[in-house]
């Protein structure tokens, strides 16, 4: 008789614990990353200036590094490494803009807002190539 009354309680407790565990861990889609300890690559890192107007966004996505290279002889290629600081899948909208030597914006038909999905704690790279040699500087914009 005693066992029959405690069994439903025990089952409910177990269910609650399982539900809680699923709630805490089940939604997480975090990514584990492994790479060479002593990297052979020698990226040309760019010192960047940051203008933060959305602290929530800045607390969600972090630019780890920005590096640049020259491709096709004279075209600037920029790559940013972005990290999702949250434990959930997040969508990041980003846009690159180019600036010429005179500080004028360089119109580029394909430089538009693009979306990438980052799993929890995942790091990804986003890149673009300037379509004109006149582009010497860039701006990278984020929005959620």
């Amino acid at each position, binding site marked *: 008789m005693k066992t029959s009354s405690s069994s439903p309680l025990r089952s409910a407790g177990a269910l609650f614990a399982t539900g809680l565990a699923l709630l805490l861990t089940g939604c997480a889609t975090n990514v584990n990353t492994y790479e060479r300890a002593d990297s052979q690559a020698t990226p040309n890192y760019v010192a960047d200036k940051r203008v933060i107007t959305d602290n929530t966004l800045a607390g969600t996505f972090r630019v780890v590094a920005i590096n640049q290279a020259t491709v096709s002889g004279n075209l600037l290629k920029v790559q940013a490494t972005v990290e999702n600081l949250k434990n959930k899948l997040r969508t990041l*909208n980003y846009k690159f803009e180019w600036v010429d030597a005179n500080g004028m914006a360089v119109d580029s038909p394909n430089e538009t807002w*693009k979306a990438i999905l980052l799993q929890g704690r995942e790091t990804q790279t986003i890149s673009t*190539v300037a379509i004109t040699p006149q582009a010497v500087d860039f701006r990278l914009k984020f929005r959620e």
Partner: protein
Amino acid sequence: MKLNLTSQFTGMLALGALLALTGCETVPETRTVDAKGPEAVNTAAINSQDWASAADQLVGSLLSSNALDNAPRTPAVLAVDRVINNTQLMVDTDLLIKKIRVALTRTGKIAITNTMGLGERAVVASEAAELEEMQSGKKQKVIVPDYTLYAKLIQQSDKGTKVTQNTYSFQMSLVQTKTGLTVWEEEKSIAKQTKRSGSVGW
């Protein structure tokens, strides 16, 4: 005085009726959005943001590959070959090709011929060249393209119990005409999942 009150009441009633008839009219709201931005309407098909994203990725890949570094001249002459649309969508493939043409032309490394290939044809330019030939008596020299660009759009639909996924693949190849060799190839994909709406049972 009585007549005056009656006429005032009638006037207010008429005004009220007018407001009731016109005030509740629903005016369709239209706003201008960035056609290639996050506000663009997302559908199961390829939207404006997808075209721009695919074009940017393909151009970025071509320029990063340095395939044009060994071109016999600058700008190298490019002819746009067939663009096969194997999707279920009735789309103008220039939504992709034009963006790539614009970007490649702006690099100064590519000039696109319009007298050869299945791409955009310059009809008036061809007629002008024929007229010039007739008047001068000299055969116009047609520049043989150094490269041809071939593209294909593919759609793959996968249906789950509740979700349908459409994966659109944008394939592109750059062929060197002198050797017939493909000097650059790329495939970029965009996958879109759509939840099926619940069916109505009777």
